[in-house]
């Protein structure tokens, strides 16, 4: 039986040759992402913005009355809602960010939530309440804070681990790659105004973990090659390492992708944002491992000596005793 080979034997792509332009593109993308986050902002869901989200199915209709719903909820005077299709054509999500004075008062916020649901239930006969999330301003503030801490702590802890297991240059490279992945994911969410919720934070943390798999595999090979080919130029050695691990990089990204694809296309609507973020992170992460994590090592001056133990006094004495020096 002839087996499938995604990457032909003896592939030798000179990735590092284009390291400066590609790296410039990376920096540019990071800057663009943050500019998008700053200007368009993230479309915070109820987790982070507080307020009310109602998910419902219109069991007897083929199409949910989105425009009418928007008017009905707006008429209640809690501000204009975001009404979107959610899953099937007859399913919607209605998100209302309550006015500040309402959300500050816990009881008023609760009353507003009940009011909205009750109104819709009486207005539409085939309204089936599938679920609702109702988050007070206080809780959403806490969520924002813990989410930020979680991201920062994860990046710091992982960079530290890489530094301990490899060398400081590798820690910096991995950290930059992570920063790149997180930034681009945030940028995408700002660009497409996808709902940004706690699940997306979970997705980003998962991306951080899996993007690092690629980085580590390449770094591990670089370390091995640094010990093996003491005289090789660093860019060439990095190219060799990336090429040697390329088959694995492609294959792993592909298995992850085919596993996620059905969930992305057919999975529950509530998971779409999360799975989309992970899938996106998969590509961004693979790219950053090859084009950010590796080239940084050139600029940070990694040498073969990084992994050869320095001679101790005892070693020198032993050499002397043997008459080698």
């Amino acid at each position, binding site marked *: 039986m002839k087996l499938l080979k995604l990457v032909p034997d003896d592939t030798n792509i000179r990735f590092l040759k284009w390291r400066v332009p590609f790296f410039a593109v990376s920096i540019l993308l990071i800057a663009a992402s943050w500019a998008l986050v700053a200007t368009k902002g993230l479309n915070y869901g109820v987790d982070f913005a507080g307020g009310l989200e109602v998910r419902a199915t219109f069991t007897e209709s083929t199409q949910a009355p989105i425009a009418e719903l928007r008017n009905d909820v707006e008429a209640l005077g809690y501000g204009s809602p975001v009404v979107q299709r959610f899953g099937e054509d007859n399913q919607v999500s209605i998100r209302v960010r309550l006015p500040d004075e309402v959300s500050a008062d816990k009881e008023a916020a609760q009353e507003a939530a009940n009011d909205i649901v009750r109104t819709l239930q009486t207005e539409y006969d085939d309204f089936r309440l599938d679920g609702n999330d109702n988050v007070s301003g206080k809780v959403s503030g806490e969520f924002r804070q*813990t989410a930020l801490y979680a991201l920062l702590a994860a990046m710091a802890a992982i960079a530290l681990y890489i530094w301990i297991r490899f060398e400081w240059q590798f820690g910096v490279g991995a950290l930059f790659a992570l920063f790149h992945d997180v930034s681009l994911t945030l940028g995408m969410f700002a660009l497409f105004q996808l709902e940004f919720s706690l699940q997306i934070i979970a997705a980003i943390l998962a991306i951080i973990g899996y993007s690092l798999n690629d980085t580590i595999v390449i770094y591990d090979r670089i370390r091995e090659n640094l010990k093996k080919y003491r005289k090789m130029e660093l860019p060439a050695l990095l190219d060799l390492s990336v090429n040697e691990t390329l088959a694995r990089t492609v*294959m792993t990204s592909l298995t992850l992708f085919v596993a996620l694809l059905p*969930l992305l296309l057919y*999975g529950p609507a509530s*998971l779409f944002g999360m799975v989309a973020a*992970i899938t996106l992170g998969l590509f961004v992460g693979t790219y950053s491992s090859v084009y950010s994590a590796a080239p940084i090592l050139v600029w940070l001056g990694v040498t073969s000596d990084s992994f050869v133990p320095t001679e101790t006094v005892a070693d020198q004495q032993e050499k002397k005793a043997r008459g080698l020096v």
Partner: protein
Amino acid sequence: MLDFPTWRKIWLWLITALCVGAALPSLLSATSVRWPDVLPQPMVNLGLDLAGGSHILLEADAAQVESQRLENMEENVRNIMRRAEPRIRIGDVSTRDGRLSFMLDDPSEVDRARELLLPSINGTRLVREWDLAVEDGSRMILTPTSDGLDQAVSDAMESATEVVRKRIDELGTREPTIIRQGDTRIVVQVPGLQDPDQLKALLGQTAKLEFKLVDQNALPSDVQQGLAPPGSEIFPYAETSDFAGSSLAVRRLGGIRGDNLTGAQQSFDPQTNEPVVNIQFDSDGGRRFAKLTTDNVGKPFAIILDGQVLSAPNINEPIRGGSAQISGGFSVETANQLAISLRSGALPVDLAVIEERTVGPDLGADSIRRGMLAMAVGSVMVVILMIATYGRFGVYATAALGINIAMLLGIMAALNTTLTLPGIAGFVLTIGAAVDANVLINERIREERKRGRRVIAAVENGYNEASRAIYDANITNFIAGVLLFLFGSGPVRGFAVVLIIGLFTSVFTALTLTRMWVAGYLRKAKPKDIVL
């Protein structure tokens, strides 16, 4: 590499069998096959986002505990001074700035007053509850200690949790989860609830019932402006009462509270047929209620619920039977709800819903169905890819993947963890990433063969050289997973749990089990060349 002693094989298979076995009850529960009752029944719980149900986060108002405590102490101080032999005369008691202060009419009685207050100040616990200071010779100042306050909040939360539990039990919901969280919060999780509004209304009702005498001397114009005469306070009428929109002045002291009830039922007024709540006092409460009504025949008294006047009837005759009827424009539903709240006792502190998440059972079932299907299709695609690329070695990886998923489910069941909707994404992610270890190993073996190593040496090198990166990658994933678990809440935690357990089962199956199988194959078949 080829050397796999029998004891080690037995050991590995035993671990595998145990973990996979633990998954069986959960898997069988979806079919009609029954798992024997005599065996242990580890089960994976379904999160509320999959099973349907309500998650409600309640927060108590700690400042209210503080002011309530101050109020109680004020009454306590007055009683102590009045009952002292001989009586100690004191001036007005001030409760400003969160502390209690009062003047003794006779400064020489400071020491006696201090002596009498000591038991209340020291409390019955290890922490001192109040600090006592004397200013200008005759002004006594009681300041709550922060330890005492913390203790009071903690006590209030404990009994509030108990009250919440009783009320939910009254609704007859099955298996509610009620946990205290942090200093002032309570998490309530109720699976498969049909009417979350009812639950929220029930939990939001403090049910603090008070009977206070109406201050008949207060000027109506002052009362409507919110100006209370000395010794009185003003309460608004409840929205459901006949006088909604107006207020009433009542005497601050001398009333009684409805916290010592033995029963409360919804009923109908025989004359008006209006829904009412009948309450029964315990012997102590009944005695006090009888005294209040006997002493004040002909005067009106206000029935106050959670700071709102329900009604203010005249006391026509002393009520000595220890029971009373409360009316106030109730519907059958609100009367019933009040009866439940009163039966389960008043909440010692107001609770407000600060987060609520409800998922209907239909949506949850749909999520599971879609999630399972997506997982199955994804797995099949991974399997095809692996076998097409690595042949026999892909089959080993596939077998390892199957065992991996079963073990993951089994360990989750054994640890009694909860599968949430993001947890399903965690499963899919684990399926896609678990084979990474095999990809690494197999690619390495290919490389080693290309360099001309013999089969056994190539396989051995493949496993050894790949292990390093596999461990490093899994440890960093583990770090991210643990942080996710620590910072995450509810459903997101469910995702972290799957990822973390999945890392362990992946390393075990993809590295250890496949190694055992490959070793067995090489030893038996002794192939000169391997297709890879």
